[in-house]
């Protein structure tokens, strides 16, 4: 790990961290502020929900959600938080080493007396720190929103903790997958389309998984590995799926190191 690279990375990502953190925090607080209304009208709402086709409810994970409880409603919002965090983490993953190449600064960095392993490690740690900052803001926003707007309804703090803790696993998955894909393709010209593709793609797969019922798509998308509604319902993780998720992350990281150490840095052409 090289402290200079770490500092440089963190500094250059400061604005992005701020934007994402405030954006996601605003989303949590804004949507949770409607909780009281939803909870009071829960009967009506559940009636209305029943009129939607079950496939559609499944697609939005609403078949397991009870919007009249604090965590039931929170799990509904959490899906969108996950989507945002997935795109952010993929964005950092795809850009981690590819931005240096597309902006042609890789020559500068890699002609310095640092090893490729040091470069990846420093950049990864900086990205993880960035994601952790956003993560912390989400924690604070979630507790604040729930405290402010839950009224006199009770909730299981332990389950909320489980939900929020899942963010770390979730972020690391998209960060490492983004990184390994960016090293597998020949050249990443623009990071954003890739990040949106991976984030939304994983979400859509999870939605389809609900739609198609017994198709085993839940094996490949972290939105199912760490399904908010299911965590709230059972007050626990689906351990095999979480282990699968972590295994993919570890493999992606190992492959990334292997690939980057052997990578030919493309020259200006």
């Amino acid at each position, binding site marked *: 790990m*090289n402290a*200079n690279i770490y500092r*440089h990375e963190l500094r*250059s990502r400061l604005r992005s961290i701020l934007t994402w953190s405030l954006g996601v925090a605003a989303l949590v607080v804004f949507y949770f502020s409607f909780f009281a209304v939803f909870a009071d009208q829960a009967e009506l709402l559940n009636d209305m929900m029943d009129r939607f086709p079950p496939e559609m409810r499944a697609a939005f994970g609403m078949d397991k959600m009870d919007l009249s409880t604090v965590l039931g409603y929170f799990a509904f919002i959490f899906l969108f938080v996950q989507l945002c965090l997935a795109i952010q983490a993929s964005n950092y993953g795809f850009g981690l080493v590819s931005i240096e190449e597309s*902006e*042609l*600064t*890789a*020559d*500068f960095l*890699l*002609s*310095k*007396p*640092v*090893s490729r392993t*040091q470069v990846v490690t420093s950049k990864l740690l900086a990205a993880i720190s960035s994601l952790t900052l956003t993560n912390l803001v989400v924690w604070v926003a979630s507790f604040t929103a729930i405290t402010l707007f839950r009224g006199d309804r009770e909730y299981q703090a332990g389950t909320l903790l489980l939900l929020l803790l899942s963010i770390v696993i979730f972020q690391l998955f998209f960060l490492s997958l983004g990184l390994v894909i960016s090293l597998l393709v020949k050249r990443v010209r623009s990071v954003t389309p890739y990040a949106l593709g991976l984030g939304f793609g994983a979400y859509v797969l999870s939605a389809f998984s609900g739609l198609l019922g017994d198709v085993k798509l839940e094996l490949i998308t972290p939105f199912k590995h760490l399904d908010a509604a299911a965590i709230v319902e059972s007050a626990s993780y689906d351990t095999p799926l979480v282990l699968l998720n972590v295994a993919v992350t570890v493999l992606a990281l190992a492959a990334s190191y292997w690939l980057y150490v*052997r990578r*030919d*840095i493309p*020259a*200006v052409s």
Partner: protein
Amino acid sequence: MSIIAVSGLTKYYGKARGIVDVSFNVDEGEIFGFIGPNGAGKSTTIRLLLSLIHPSGGSATVFGKDVVTHGPEIRRDIGYLPSEVYYYEGMKVIDLLKYSASFYDGDRTQRMRELSDVMELDLNRRISDLSYGNKKKVGIVQGLLHGPKLLFLDEPTAGLDPLMQRKFFNLIREENARGVTVFFSSHILGEVQRLCTRVGIIREGRLVEISAIRTLQQNNYKKVRVAADGLSAAGLDLPGVTNLQTEDSTASFFFKGDINAVLHKLSSLHVSDVIIEEPTLEEIFMHYYE
């Protein structure tokens, strides 16, 4: 001891040729010129020595250490000025230079100021606001500020005005006088001749010649174009003249040998225009190696 020792170095990009079976040595304290047309493999060779890319075959050592396995150690004492300079656009020059210096031991601020003064570089401007020539100056300062023992210069003069080129060459000569070895890649023969002691000539990925610059100069051709009244091909038939072409009252040819012979011949004519110049590298290749 050889500072750079390259042996059978080969690089293919997929099926595309980079360099093939290149071998040479660069001794301590010399300025080694590396010339060849664009796409001949100059940058590929430098990038291999910096381990930015990995060889498909052969091996290379710098400071006696293998470039593939000892990259970070070697790069501690290397300065690199790439042919195209690109830096973090959002940064100020001073921050970029500090970032660059932070990778090396010791305080480099003093040297950074000196170099920036010599190259007339404004440290407080943003990289994104700099012209190409000014970015090149940033490249020069960041390549030299840590006092490297070996310099890789990849077509360093492109984008620098003649005045700056001269300052730059002086800087390189000073460094060299202090014992710094220089690997100077260029496609401009003139600047290589001004600076280097030995040259390697690379063409289509293969090293075709390594010779002392003096030998090259002795064998060197001049390109002569002359316009004069009553000019005839027969009148210019001197030993050493090749590729003679006449058209109306102008003639052009290559000449190898003592240039006074040509001047003597021309003085007997009523010359209205004359150009004597270095042949381009392409022309050298055509006449020198066939």
